[in-house]
């Protein structure tokens, strides 16, 4: 073998050597086990939280039971004190927040299922590996396509982004909420929230908003969240808090659903993804959220899910969009923003690229086939902003001219359907 030895000039510098610094395999295993056990007994609450984030099912129940036993034992031995001390020092709330869906929904949506989640036992934000995992199981009820028009309620206040003839102009949105006069002294209050999908759009929305002296915006995005797992993050509780503040936002912009392809818990029962019970429960949660934004003066812009590359994911996304469409149609203050036409290919399915008004090709979808790229997000945000400008007449002479977006994108109305 004529291979050269590793270059001495580039390998790690000599380390301090002590007799206790080396070990054979067996001793190393012993050390690893001791280290992991130490970390585990000090973090039993995090083990419980991790178990809770697993998809609902037998595995979750088993892991949750085991970790709960450990957690109780650790608490009995006061091993939870270091974590409590750190949480307190960091100003984090150690008390569980619970799910607001349980207590509010039934009174707000007469047509929704009357059940409620059992009280949750974990805080709304817990350390984990990126949120509750999507369920592996899928129902056989997929295949229904999203309806883009309502047949069981008032006309959908459809804010399509392409500006094609099908689009309902923003100015024609049912003006159920009175349009108040916006000025630099009394700015338009916007609140935008959702999951990571929504965050992409929200961040791009910030640019035109931040250049306008007529708006103030609050972003509240939580990655790996959705409506399926209020035990992980409770969006209904969050929107109740937001709307209950002194002056509720004039407009709420919301986008979730990308993480909701998993089982849910309803009335203490696990409901299978895509089943009728799942769809009913999801509809109930959507309705509850929408109703919470009904202050008489606020509008809700709910951004639908774009087409997904993965077939299973696309199936449930279509179901969610259908629910959003019909629930928005029942509520004049809610505008459903359908991304389907803009992000679909000629066959109506997933398409990664878009062609803008100048005929330039742009990659609109992230490599994961779920998220939207910077260009695509800017595109969506630009149209939402145009809708808001129209709705509140922000282009009056008192308003400053809108700054151009960071990336040149197409104008609404010139995009392919």
């Amino acid at each position: 073998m004529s291979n050269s030895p590793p270059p001495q000039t580039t390998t790690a510098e000599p380390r301090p050597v002590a007799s206790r610094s080396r070990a054979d395999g067996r001793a190393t295993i012993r050390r690893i086990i001791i280290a992991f056990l130490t970390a585990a007994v000090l973090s039993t609450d995090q083990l419980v939280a991790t178990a809770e984030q697993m998809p609902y099912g037998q595995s979750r129940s088993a892991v949750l039971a085991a970790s709960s036993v450990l957690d109780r034992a650790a608490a009995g031995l006061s091993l939870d004190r270091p974590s409590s001390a750190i949480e307190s020092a960091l100003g984090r709330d150690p008390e569980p927040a619970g799910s607001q869906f349980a207590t509010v929904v039934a009174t707000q949506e007469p047509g929704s299922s009357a059940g409620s989640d059992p009280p949750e036992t974990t805080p709304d934000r817990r350390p984990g590996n990126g949120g509750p995992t999507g369920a592996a199981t899928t129902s056989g009820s997929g295949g229904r396509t999203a309806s883009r028009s309502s047949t069981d309620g008032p006309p959908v206040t459809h804010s399509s982004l392409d500006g094609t003839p099908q689009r309902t102009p923003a100015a024609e949105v049912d003006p159920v909420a009175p349009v108040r006069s916006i000025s630099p002294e009394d700015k338009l209050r916007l609140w935008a929230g959702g999951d990571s999908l929504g965050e992409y759009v929200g961040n791009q929305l910030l640019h035109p908003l931040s250049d306008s002296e007529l708006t103030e915006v609050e972003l509240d995005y939580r990655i790996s969240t959705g409506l399926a797992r209020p035990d992980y993050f409770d969006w209904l509780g969050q929107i109740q808090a937001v709307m209950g503040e002194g002056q509720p936002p004039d407009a709420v912009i919301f986008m979730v659903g990308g993480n909701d392809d998993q089982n849910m818990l309803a009335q203490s029962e696990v409901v299978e993804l895509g089943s009728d019970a799942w769809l009913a429960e999801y509809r109930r949660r959507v309705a509850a959220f929408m109703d919470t934004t009904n202050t008489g003066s606020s509008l809700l812009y709910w951004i639908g899910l774009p087409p997904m590359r993965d077939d299973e994911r696309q199936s449930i996304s279509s179901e969610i969009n259908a629910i959003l469409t019909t629930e928005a149609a029942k509520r004049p203050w809610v505008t459903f923003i359908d991304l389907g036409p803009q992000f679909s290919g000629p066959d109506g399915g997933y398409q990664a690229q878009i062609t803008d008004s100048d005929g330039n090709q742009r990659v609109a979808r992230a490599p994961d086939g779920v998220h939207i790229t910077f260009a695509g997000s800017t595109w969506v945000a630009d149209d939402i902003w145009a809708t808001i400008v129209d709705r509140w007449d922000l282009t009056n002479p008192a308003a400053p001219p809108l700054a151009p977006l960071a990336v040149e994108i197409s104008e609404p109305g010139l995009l392919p359907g």
Partner: protein
Amino acid sequence: MLFPTVTFAVFFVAVFLAHLGLKDRPLAWKTMMLAASYVFYGWWNWRFCGLLALSTVANWAFGAVMADLPQRARRVVMVLAAAANLAMLGLFKYYGFFVEALSSSIGTGGLPLLDFVLPIGISFFTFQALSYVVDVYRRNLDGRPLLDFAVYLAFFPQLVAGPIVRATEFLPQLDRLTVRDSPTSPLTRPPIEVSEAAWLIGRGLFKKVVIASYLADTIVDPVFAAPSLASKTDLLLAFYGYAVQIYADFSGYTDMAIGIALLLGFRFPTNFDNPYRALSIQDFWRRWHMTLSRWLQDYLYIPLGGNRISPLVTYRNLMATMILGGLWHGAAWNFVAWGGVHGAALAGERYIGQRRRSWDWLDDEPAAGPSTPDGVTSSKVDDGLATVDATTAEATATQTGTVTAKNPQTGPETEAAAKTATGTAAGGREALWRRVVRTIDRFDRSNSWVGPVVRWFITFHIVGLAWVLFRADSFGLAWDFFTALATAPLGGTDNPMVALVVAAGIAAQLLPSRIGLRLQLIYARMDPTLQSIGFGGWIFLASRLGPEGVAPFIYFQF
């Protein structure tokens, strides 16, 4: 599968047990390690494994084919291999960028945008594969069995984000673990450097989970999302915060990767050496992502001619190397600009160094102070991407696969620069340059702290300005950031703790290295059980102090 997760902990314990159990069965060990690495990689997306396997087989075949060929044919095979690797990288990583750029300028000519899934770590394993083929071509390395090469390319600690380990570094260590001295002799493995591994993993965990995640969540992401909404104080915190964040993120991953590899018996090259301690951009690249700068130097800068041909060609080579290095990080103009800034800074340093030397030669007054014209300072500036003279390095690398520093005292470039200086010394611009350079010289030769501090300050801020291009989602946003930085009201910050973390993050790199080594030594001398409990407590602490969840590592996208 991310390192700082329970999933990876379970995975690693299983792999480690198998590693110990198969120590006397080399073939089984290699097969197990290969399978484990593919499981690790496929955890993101099993489809990625196909591309990795394809790259493995193809590059191994290129190496194998070369073995008995004459030199000219070897060269053809090597060029084919390089083209194939770059084509694969280009297709998956740069095709969309290329079509978008064409679309915005001259039209695509019918080229469609295709929907490729960018495999994680493709840039890393492609560079490693290329280094294998080139090293076989240069006869630094014999062609190896497919299984050995496959283990090298897929070895999970370094697969997705480096360090970029060369075959000449990895394969001899693989042999040490798996090749018997004789058919009947048992395999003996050296003791495991468990304390050092724990130290590295613990350090990396803290950097990533606590520092990088905290800075990203608290200041960097919000400010870069909308710079015009931030106060000047927050913009400055984001500016410095991102410098600390990206270092903590990437070096944290590297620390963990090196520590994990060490537990499995492999010592990887150092990848970071307090980069924000650098006193020049060249010095920075000796300390930042060292395995990439080594790669770029040996497989790009030197083959382009290095600094052997002429000053102008050297500048061109520096620019080309750094711009391509920028493009390696991502298919976007931001990265091209980031590389361009570094290339221009390297070229500028080199230019100033040459002028200094030529003026020194012409000066009546003798050079004062400890440095000679070709002393420590000027020799640092004179060399190319790193401290290696191109001719010497290539010759040395060809013979041994190693790189040895050598600084020529004089050379054709020096003479050329001297002639140039003679011809134009009377010019006003020349006089201005001379004044600037003499001021720098005066600082350097004064033995005071002022010179190094000024150099450090300038270097750090050039690096920081380039980081803004690296971080911003678009040129427009980078411009917004700079504009806001210049025009925003001073304002305050809601995050005073961030300032403390940023200051500590920078200060930690300026402290003498011996402090860290002393702490490591103290840890290594503790009772083994105490070490283990301490390590477990450290994991607990890091997980508590960090924000929820584990954000993806920045360098995974590359």
